[in-house]
């Protein structure tokens, strides 16, 4: 049976893994390559790396770091942040990444998704989205897409964007709730479920994981195909193995041997 994926997310700033709440008050947690190996050895099913300052500093992603990770990590990993051109993306895949993730770039120019899908292959293209709750008739799903680290409101409805991105050619969608991010109070179940049951491609829930039960909820209630974890594992509160044990007990299929 296909198992549900647990994906540690490593936000990178100045070559260090960092973590903040709602993109603020970041603290450094360790070396990305060492942490990637530890998570891979510890049963993570996939990894995602975001170069969180590349975009703001208008510089390309740290390709040497991607290369070092590719040499030692032999599970799939995605890379995002600061990817502007197809050449950048091609280089990231050539350095050993399985997938590239785009977010603001796709909102600003949706056609880039179609180009990426054609050149890189649909399965290598991940759309990250940062929806926020919006009680406004302009947003039928009840959620608006934000960009630029949640600072910019786009006027786009979250569900409409997800469906459009699927049509344009993304292989997977990461729904990263602005409201839940870094809170450790649970995933955004309503929107995750709405998107997961409306598109035909895998949906990854992101933001808010604090205890293993939150993953049980997002898999069983919201039908997510994968879930991103950050603080709860980075801070040492839980191991991947402990999370999987609890998912297994709750009847969620997980990979148990690695």
């Amino acid at each position, binding site marked *: 049976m296909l198992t549900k994926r647990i994906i540690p997310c490593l936000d990178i700033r100045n070559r260090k893994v960092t973590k903040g709440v709602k993109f603020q008050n970041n603290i450094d947690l360790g070396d990305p390559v060492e942490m990637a190996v530890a998570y891979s050895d510890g049963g993570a099913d996939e990894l995602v790396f975001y170069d969180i300052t590349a975009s703001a500093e208008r510089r390309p992603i740290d390709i040497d770091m991607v290369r070092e990770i590719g040499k030692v990590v032999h599970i799939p990993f995605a890379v995002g942040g600061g990817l502007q051109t197809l050449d950048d993306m091609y280089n990231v895949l050539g350095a050993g990444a399985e997938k590239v993730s785009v977010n603001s770039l796709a909102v600003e120019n949706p056609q880039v998704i179609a180009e990426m899908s054609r050149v890189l292959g649909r399965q*290598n293209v991940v759309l990250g989205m940062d929806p926020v709750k919006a009680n406004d008739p302009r947003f039928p799903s009840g959620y608006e897409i934000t960009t630029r680290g949640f600072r910019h409101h786009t006027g786009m409805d979250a569900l409409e964007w997800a469906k459009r991105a699927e049509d344009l050619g993304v292989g997977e969608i990461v729904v990263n709730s602005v409201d839940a991010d870094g809170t450790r109070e649970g995933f955004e179940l309503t929107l995750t479920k709405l998107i997961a049951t409306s598109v035909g*491609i895998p949906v990854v829930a992101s933001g808010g994981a604090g205890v293993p039960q939150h993953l049980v909820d997002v898999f069983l209630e919201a039908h997510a195909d994968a879930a991103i974890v950050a603080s709860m594992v980075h801070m040492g509160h839980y191991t991947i193995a402990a999370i999987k044990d609890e998912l297994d007990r709750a009847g969620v299929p997980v990979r148990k041997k*690695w």
Partner: protein
Amino acid sequence: MIAIVDYKAGNLTSVRLALEDLGVPAVVTQDPDAILAADRVIFPGVGAAGAAMDHLTQLGLVSPLRQALDQGKPFLGICLGTQVIFEHSEEDGGVACLGIVPGNVKRFNPSDPLCKIPQMGWNTAEIRRSHPILEDIEDQSEFYFVHSYYPAPADGAHVVAETEYADARFASVIGRDNLVATQFHPERSGRIGLALLANFSRWDGTC
């Protein structure tokens, strides 16, 4: 030396890096002579079957691949490489493939709308018969899959392991003589995937 066949079918870096980490010498090549000079051949690939067959033809690789197989070289197909060794694929409106192994490649057609296509993630390989490349790999081990189509060998004797997805039970490892092929990606399947690649690097092509 292992030749990793480059036929413009996706990213081969992960295969090269996995072998590098194992300390196994390998070269990524489009050169028929390099393929025929190698001890072993890995035939990987991601993407679409139609484009893959076009590229193989344009690059003049169809007959070198057959020759390498006929010479008895240990030969490992991965993902799309595995699919195009069959006779026919339903992809791209129907594509005639290499016809090395009897059988077809079919599209997943799930009855459950929540079952996503492609299958993306880790799924179980149920081992049907022992094979040298599965040595020391436990039954029901999980491997990483990304695919919308699956191989259906005509001869059940060629099925080495099976996997279930989207109402289908399909051959996830196929073996015949010196040819072995996986629908999953051993190069992305962590320690267990590396063990399979290490087994392949030592395999003499006999069963």
